């Protein structure tokens, strides 16, 4: 990449924008002007940047004139007015304590503007930014140094001028004392460093992570554990309390980093970067909201055929559709008030008559953990239910429902109430909604489980919650026995078992973490509204 010199300093193409802007503003020294003109004469690339700069100036002039004519030109707001008042106060004080106030004014007026970075987010995301201890403001489009970004749902992307990208997957909270040294308080923070990136360091309460030309993600979990997942390059991990340092290369697993700095294998997370362009340009729909929440598996069923169901998560396994299922049934559609879906949205109809009435292998790369996770789906059932029917099931092959084997499942009771059961071999939890959901209408279901709580949501609302501490060891379920419409693959439903589901299903999604109430609410609203609006700035 070309480098030039202006006023004795190296000027990269990136810096050239600034120099040209200074030239336009008449703020470049005479020598600087001469240097700039020389560079422009000599470099086609520099002239291209110059022309791009003035094209933007021209467009801004048109925009400003248009808005002025329409009377919609924004006024300079209170914040700036407050700064002005503050400066006036300083000047007033200067009249009394001239020397001190003069010094204060000198410092104040010469403080550099905090650096900032533009922010983009997937549709349906919700976030706030608090700047220098101010109250959090929703939906700001830039993060300044010194501010804190709190993403309650969705995916937010920051791109530094160096080309380094940060991806914050909600729920997450990240402080930016400097743009290149974020402090992750909780949640997921990913980074992909650009070619021009300088030093980049992510810090959590217990560790730091120094980038060495990499793409990696750090998760600060609610249980104080920290995870590291490396996809490219190398990451140095430091543990200040022990002084231990390790270098981590990409591999087939991620790592949980113990308090003493030891690395313990864990399932590798999904790399968010390959799917990022599609996610950021996606329309405001239910699917965009779900993908923004970084699921580990998502089967929309739109392209399902017997034998295959596309998984929307890049690199994640496809699901399977058994032979009795009709994969071309109508799903939720705008004509029925589900504006977050396309006109041709498809789901699947399960006749519930035999063992082929099942969608299976609804698995993720990391499997399904009994310790923490979430599942979301939509179902529709006619009112003629007579026995219990299983909806989503994850468990051992010979599980028939309601234990005692290791299994968990959402199901419908004989009276049509939505319920969820989880059995980890030592403890079980049964949650039940209070309403009959077999009314031939589509219903949105989310179940989220973690050690501290198990929650059941129906149509965006919390229907039931159990907060007894589940301390059982973790157990991962994988493969064919993560399914919909039938219990374990090694068992035909008998007396006392949950029966086949007879009805419609659509949009099955899986997470390796517990979704929050905010995320569930956003999912439901994005299904029912034409263009989901997150709260605007007050």
């Amino acid at each position, binding site marked *: 990449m070309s480098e030039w010199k202006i006023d004795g300093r190296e000027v990269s193409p990136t810096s050239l*924008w600034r120099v040209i802007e200074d*030239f336009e503003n008449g703020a470049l020294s005479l020598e600087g002007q001469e240097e700039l003109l020389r560079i422009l004469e000599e470099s086609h690339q520099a002239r291209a940047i110059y022309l791009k700069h003035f094209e933007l100036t*021209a467009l801004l002039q*048109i925009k400003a004139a248009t808005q002025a004519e329409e009377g919609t030109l924004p006024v300079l707001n209170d*914040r700036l007015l407050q700064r002005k008042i503050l400066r006036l106060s300083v000047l007033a004080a200067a009249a009394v304590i001239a020397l001190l106030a003069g010094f204060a004014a000198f410092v104040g007026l*010469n403080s550099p503007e905090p650096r900032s970075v533009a922010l983009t987010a997937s549709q349906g995301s919700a976030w706030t930014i608090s700047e220098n201890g101010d109250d959090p403001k929703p939906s700001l489009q830039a993060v300044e140094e010194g501010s804190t970004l709190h993403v309650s749902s969705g995916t937010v992307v920051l791109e530094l001028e160096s080309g380094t990208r940060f991806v914050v997957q909600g729920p997450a909270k990240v402080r930016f004392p400097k743009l290149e040294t974020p402090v992750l308080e909780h949640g997921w923070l990913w980074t992909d460093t650009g070619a021009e990136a300088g030093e980049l360091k992510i810090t959590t309460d217990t560790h730091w992570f120094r980038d060495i030309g990499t793409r990696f993600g750090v998760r600060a979990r609610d249980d104080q554990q920290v995870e590291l997942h490396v996809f490219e390059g190398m990451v140095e991990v430091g543990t200040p309390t022990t002084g231990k340092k390790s270098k981590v290369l990409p591999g087939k697993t991620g790592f949980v980093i113990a308090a003493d700095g030891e690395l313990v294998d864990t399932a590798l997370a999904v790399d968010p970067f390959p799917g990022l362009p599609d996610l950021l340009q996606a329309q405001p729909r239910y699917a965009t909201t779900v993908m923004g929440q970084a699921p580990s598996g998502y089967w929309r069923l739109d392209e399902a055929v017997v034998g295959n169901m596309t998984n929307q998560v890049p690199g994640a396994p496809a699901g399977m559709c058994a032979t009795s299922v009709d994969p071309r049934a109508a799903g939720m559609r705008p004509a029925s008030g589900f504006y977050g879906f396309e006109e041709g949205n498809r789901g699947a109809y399960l006749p519930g008559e035999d063992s082929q009435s099942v969608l299976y292998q609804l698995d993720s790369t990391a499997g399904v953990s009994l310790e923490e996770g979430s599942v979301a789906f939509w179902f529709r059932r006619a009112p003629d239910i007579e026995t219990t029917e299983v909806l989503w099931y994850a468990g051992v092959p010979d599980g028939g429902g309601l234990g005692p084997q290791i299994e968990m499942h959402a199901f419908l009771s004989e009276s049509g109430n939505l319920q969820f059961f989880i059995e980890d071999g030592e403890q079980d939890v049964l949650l039940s909604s209070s309403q009959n959901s077999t009314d031939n209408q589509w219903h949105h279901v989310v179940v989220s489980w973690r050690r501290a709580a198990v929650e059941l949501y129906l149509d965006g609302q919390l229907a039931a919650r159990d907060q007894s501490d589940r301390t059982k060891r973790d157990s991962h379920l994988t493969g064919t026995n993560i399914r919909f419409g039938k219990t374990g693959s090694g068992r035909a439903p008998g007396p006392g078992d949950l029966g086949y589901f007879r009805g419609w299903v659509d949009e099955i999604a899986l997470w390796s973490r517990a979704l929050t109430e905010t995320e569930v609410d956003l999912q439901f609203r994005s299904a029912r509204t034409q263009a989901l609006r997150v709260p605007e700035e007050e």
Partner: protein
Amino acid sequence: MPKQPPFRMDSASSRDDEIVQLIIKHQSALRAFLVSLMPGRPDVEDLMQETSMVIWQKRAQFEAGTDFKAWMFSVARFRVMAYWRDEKRSKESALPEKLLNQLADQAVEDGFEGIDQRYQFLGECIQALRPEDRGLLLRRHLAGVTAGDLAHELGRTNNSVRVSLHRIRAIVRHCINRRASTMEGLT
């Protein structure tokens, strides 16, 4: 006998309409061209009008099917050169003639293709800015308003306002580029 239309649409008036449409269509590109060759000068509006007037007067010379924008740029280039040759004109921020021709050639070659699409992106990107940033950026680009004017109005230093403007402008530039890249990816 067929009924006559209320007015006659002869080939000359049809051609005039076409010229008017072309002038309107390429106003953004013409402005970008002139602003590039007259950096920081407040007389761009005058040159826009002069160029349009000359094109109208010489419209008979325009051959249908040829590159109207290139012809418009060549007219504008001569107006700019005449502007800078004016002995009474301050030469501060004037571009050397060689560079001016290089820029004009490159602009003709590039043609500011896609500028209307980028204007649409600009609107979307500006809307996503913080209100105070949006106000500062747009007011700076009102005719006759300088960074110094805004600094005075806000009680800030010129340098501080320039830094803010640079920051905001970089955000907008990146935003437009991202959207343009996305659009390219779709086509």
